């Protein structure tokens, strides 16, 4: 057996001091040589544990073997047989807690860089080989409506189209992609990649109607009246959470959704060529510890902030963000104020935030999430100057669509489904993605959408 190469091949990246001033992609992608060397690190395990870690069960050693053999067409075909958005997943999946965590190499060495290889083959297909289309089954003459054009909606629509259904996606915003477009910034996931993957779904025959808010423009009942025989809800978890502490509505305080939507969907970073403004001051505090927090912090930096602090109430170990993103943020000069929590904001007479009163925290007993609960240390309060705050402490499903829909929901506002089929409490209405799980990951949303597509097929075949 060949000698094990303990470390991943290095990912070529933009220099941190350069990239903190631009919105170009940070990770540049493996070169053919690096990709080949990385692919050779895979042991081609007879019982590949890595596959268990992938919610859409990509044949990981299978596609990696094709890279080693130089058959990139073969590699991408394997990936796309279970994952219709590989260029996206290769970039944003939290691999360290999914496929790569389960790689046998991970026990002693660095795991195979599965995500980077997936991105490599997807980019190679798009840029060099040209995208091929899969076979689409003969039309079944049945219409299905998909609500939301995020990863869940796109995946469900794509799968149903391949099965021969006539699918229409209804999207509230003026563009597709959901969080991929309005949340995740260009420097991590370029719009051109989302466009290409959406284009693929459209080429399968899916129709997209933008500017339609289900629950307002049309109701779920009206969709049935219009002849759609089943509905998939992929509406995500778009409702921003606030802390409800004094001063939270001061000027200069944004939810991460507002901050990122202005920047990404509305392209405020190109202001004044684009009309939508985003105001970023000199000292920025971003609250939270997830991917959203890192994205907002790095976006603030790129919009000219002098100093950006991430303020998180637990310790680094509990941070839910991808390790790579925390690392990138640190390289760019983001400061981490850990075990710290805001208790109130102090503003000036014109209503602009000037300071935050913060308190130090320590970790106590584990809470229901299994993480140690942060408890305030009495008397440790202090006041720090900040003129911009971004609140990135989580989101929950937007209740707009539930209005009068008669769907069973949990106390967190998520939709209850049957795990096997994805069907909600109302026959013919299915759901998957963040609207069911609360804010989670792209690949989990896609995995759930695939289950629902099969559930819809079964439901409509039975009729």
């Amino acid at each position, binding site marked *: 057996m060949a000698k094990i190469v303990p470390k991943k091949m290095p990912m070529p990246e933009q220099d941190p001091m350069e990239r903190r001033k631009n919105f170009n992609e940070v990770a540049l992608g493996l070169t053919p040589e690096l990709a080949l060397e990385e692919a050779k690190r895979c042991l081609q395990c007879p019982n590949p544990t890595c596959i268990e870690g992938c919610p859409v069960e990509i044949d990981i050693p299978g596609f990696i073997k094709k890279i080693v053999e130089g058959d990139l067409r073969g590699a991408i075909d394997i990936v796309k047989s279970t994952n219709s958005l590989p260029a996206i997943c290769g970039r944003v999946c939290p691999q360290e807690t999914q496929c790569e965590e389960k790689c046998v190499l991970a026990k002693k060495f660095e795991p195979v860089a599965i995500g980077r290889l997936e991105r490599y083959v997807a980019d190679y297909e798009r840029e060099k080989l040209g995208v091929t289309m899969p076979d689409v089954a003969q039309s079944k003459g049945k219409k299905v409506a998909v609500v939301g054009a995020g990863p869940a909606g796109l995946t469900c629509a794509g799968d149903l189209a391949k099965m021969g259904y006539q699918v229409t996606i209804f999207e509230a915003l003026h563009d597709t992609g959901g969080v991929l477009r309005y949340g995740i910034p260009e420097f991590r996931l370029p719009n051109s990649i989302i466009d290409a993957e959406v284009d693929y779904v459209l080429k399968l025959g899916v129709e997209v109607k933008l500017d339609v808010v289900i629950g*307002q423009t049309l109701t779920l009942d009206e969709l049935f009246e219009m002849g759609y025989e089943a509905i998939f809800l992929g509406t995500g978890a778009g409702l921003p959470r606030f802390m409800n502490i004094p001063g939270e509505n001061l000027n200069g305080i944004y939810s991460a959704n507002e901050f990122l*939507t202005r920047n990404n969907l509305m392209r405020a970073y190109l202001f004044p060529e684009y009309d939508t403004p985003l105001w970023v001051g000199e000292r920025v505090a971003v609250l939270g510890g997830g991917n959203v927090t890192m994205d907002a912090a790095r976006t603030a930096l790129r919009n000219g902030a002098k100093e950006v602090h991430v303020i998180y109430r637990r310790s680094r170990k509990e941070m839910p963000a991808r390790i790579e993103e925390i690392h990138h943020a640190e390289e760019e000069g983001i400061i981490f104020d850990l075990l710290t929590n805001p208790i109130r904001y102090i503003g000036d007479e014109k209503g602009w935030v000037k300071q935050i009163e913060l308190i130090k925290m320590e970790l106590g007993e584990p809470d229901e999430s299994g993480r140690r609960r942060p408890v305030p240390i009495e008397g440790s309060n202090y006041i720090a100057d900040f003129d911009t705050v971004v609140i990135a402490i989580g989101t929950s499903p937007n209740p707009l669509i539930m209005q009068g829909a008669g769907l069973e929901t949990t106390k967190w506002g998520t939709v209850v489904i049957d795990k096997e089929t994805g069907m909600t409490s109302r026959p013919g209405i299915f759901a998957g993605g963040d609207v069911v799980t609360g804010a989670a990951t792209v690949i989990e949303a896609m995995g759930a959408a695939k289950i629902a597509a099969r559930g819809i097929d079964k439901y409509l075949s039975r009729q």
Partner: protein
Amino acid sequence: MYKILRKEVLAPRINLMEIDAPFVARKGQPGQFIILRMREYSERIPLTIADFDREKGTVTIVFQEVGKSTEELATLNAGDVIADFVGPLGIPSDHGRKEDKKVVCVSGGVGTAVIFPELRKIKENGNYTITIQGSRSKELLFWSDRLEKYSDEFYITTDDGSFGRKGFVTDQLKDILAEKSDDIAYVLAIGPIPMMKFVCALTEQYSVKTYVSLNTIMVDGTGMCGSCRITVGNETKFACVDGPEFDGHLVDWKEMEDRNSRFIPQERESLERYRKLMGK
């Protein structure tokens, strides 16, 4: 793409457009609004549904040119298209039903267009209506005939006295309240923020319930961003999904004014740049 079928200049810098938007026209109710985005590079701007024709599938908007987006929108004409037009958004206003007492509608500036469909509904449901229309001067008045048609009593005030009573809507409103505040079911006030604020301060003295429509700064209009958040009755509300109409006596007006000034330097920069590009 959404086609402009008709354009009319109602008064200097106040324009009406009738837009082909069948989905919105089917559902729109008084009190609701739409969000439009003119071009790929444009802002999403909220505008009230000033009228709708369910059969024709059209929605009428009336907007005042106050900045870059509205000035640029005003350059479009019948036959041109708008990239995005989404709605109806917000909660339909819950007034209009038959009251035992009289209803007062107060409109200022472009608020006239916003209040019109509501007044019509209130009147058509058999209420006694008193309407006060205010404007800076005579030339800025529009739709007075439309308001008058649905009003049992109709008053006009202009700041400069060029038409109707010289003064503010609150001067007229004060006379009405002083005479018969017990006879008033509620006041609906829609116009510039200072006007709504002063109306609320006045009606509070007489303990007359007052509704206002809040034009906070919005992005998505669906409850996703919180840009439109505002304190009402010590609670944070999202104007786009919890409103846009609220009990005016519970609104934190200072916060409302502050929040609407969030982007003034950028708005100014954008407008100046646009005017320079246009050679204005």
